[in-house]
């Protein structure tokens, strides 16, 4: 098997990070349900890819839980 490596270029890294930041912002601010759902899926997809390249590690979904900020998550389901 070849030991080929395909590294992201600096430009690609910068573009991907910009995309991620933009999507993360939209995921918390967009009100239209259909758009918000699509953006949140896009955030997850991009995050998995960036994490695989050791570029980003962000645990963020708990921030979307406006109602649970004052209490534990245990009983929220």
């Amino acid at each position, binding site marked *: *098997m070849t*030991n080929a490596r*395909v590294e992201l270029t600096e430009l690609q890294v910068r573009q991907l990070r910009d995309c991620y930041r933009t999507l993360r912002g939209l995921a918390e601010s967009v009100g239209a349900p259909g758009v918000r759902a699509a953006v949140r899926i896009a955030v*997850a997809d991009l995050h*998995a890819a960036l994490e695989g390249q050791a570029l980003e590690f962000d*645990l963020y*979904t708990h921030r979307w*839980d406006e109602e649970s900020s004052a209490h534990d998550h245990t009983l929220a389901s």
Partner: protein
Amino acid sequence: MVSLEPISTVDVPYWHPRTETMPRDELAAWQWEKLRRSLALARNSPFWRERLPADISSLEDYFARVPLLYRKDIMAAQGVAPPYGTMPSTNPGLGSHHHQTSGTSGHPPVRSFDTTRDWTWCVDAYATALYGMGVREHHRGMVAFGYGLFAGFWLMHYALERIGATPVPSGGMDSRARIRLLVDLRVEVLGLTPSYALRLIETAREMGVDLKRDANVKIIMAGGEPRTDLTTDIIAEAFGARVHNAAGTTELGTVNMFECPEKRNACHIIESIVIEEVLDPVTKQPVGYGEQGVRVSTGIGREGLQLFRHWTEDLVVKRPWHECGCGRTWDYLDRGILGRTDDLRKIRGVSVTPTMVEEVVRKFDDVAEYQTILRRVRGLDTIVVRVEPASSQVDNEVLGARIGTAIKNEIGIRPDVEFAEPGTLPRFELKAARFHDEREG
């Protein structure tokens, strides 16, 4: 207008080239960074907040101070506040997927939810494994399972999709229909348990189908059960395909290892998402490369249900990464999961213990004694319950049907029920031996 660079057309053997080939010191630093943030999030969980020491300063400090997590701890936490208990670090209401274990270990099942982010993370880990096995976007893949609560093969379905391959769902089909589909669609990738692979081979023979000649399966992901090399060889020979091992746990949420095409039985740990210790079963101290111990798993990346130092009961032997020539810097488990420290047995992916059968059978007054035998019948793992009726007046046919239905309802698998003459089964004063696994050896 964003300027874009041309697409590289090199076929890279790694799904994530960067983290799969990281120098070990960089990998350790990346793991620590992820663990550090995971520990911080865990403060949202009542369970982990109580359990985790404050100010863990390094991986070494983590190993030294964080207590081992046993199944009983998980079940206790889950029992406090069903369905998911006190462990979640993120509101389960933000989940988008639910899965659970078979619920057949004599206790309630381990239940699991995933946020969209977590599910993507889980799928991506599975894609790492499949891509590493050689699955590519031009392939068609069939996942031969019932599409029920068990997470593992759902992940394979979505991982095929993520890679860009074409998943062929076969949830409602019997073995004959699946074989016809494999042949008709020239399916190249097949996911299933080793037991079910043997069943498909047997069924194909009955149909007059030569799988090696008539089908086109090239890559088999056979998971969910331990297997012998002989079983692997039988499956590989019958299909004319490479058979790969993989394993994971519901507690972790996804696969933790996969067998490398470069070296048979070298099951690389996906070290970008999990930290695997191997500890002596008795002293609970680390063992070295090449020594057998219990796999202790720490998930680094899941946000809803986190896992720190989970004592899996899986017996493994870890080997250093450089003994495999694939270029990954991930250590590997030699031959995957070698066995378990407890008495749990896997039947068609379902966990079965002696007490589970006993709890059912002992409810029948007409049963004087019984034995449970795990046997491979026509290639399929089967539970055989050998019953000794309390008297010769018992209608064996009726009793057998009732026991079969009860076990099916409680355990999820319909057993074969056999009858022994009154007084012929052994009795025990101490340490009963009613449970026999004839598949071993």
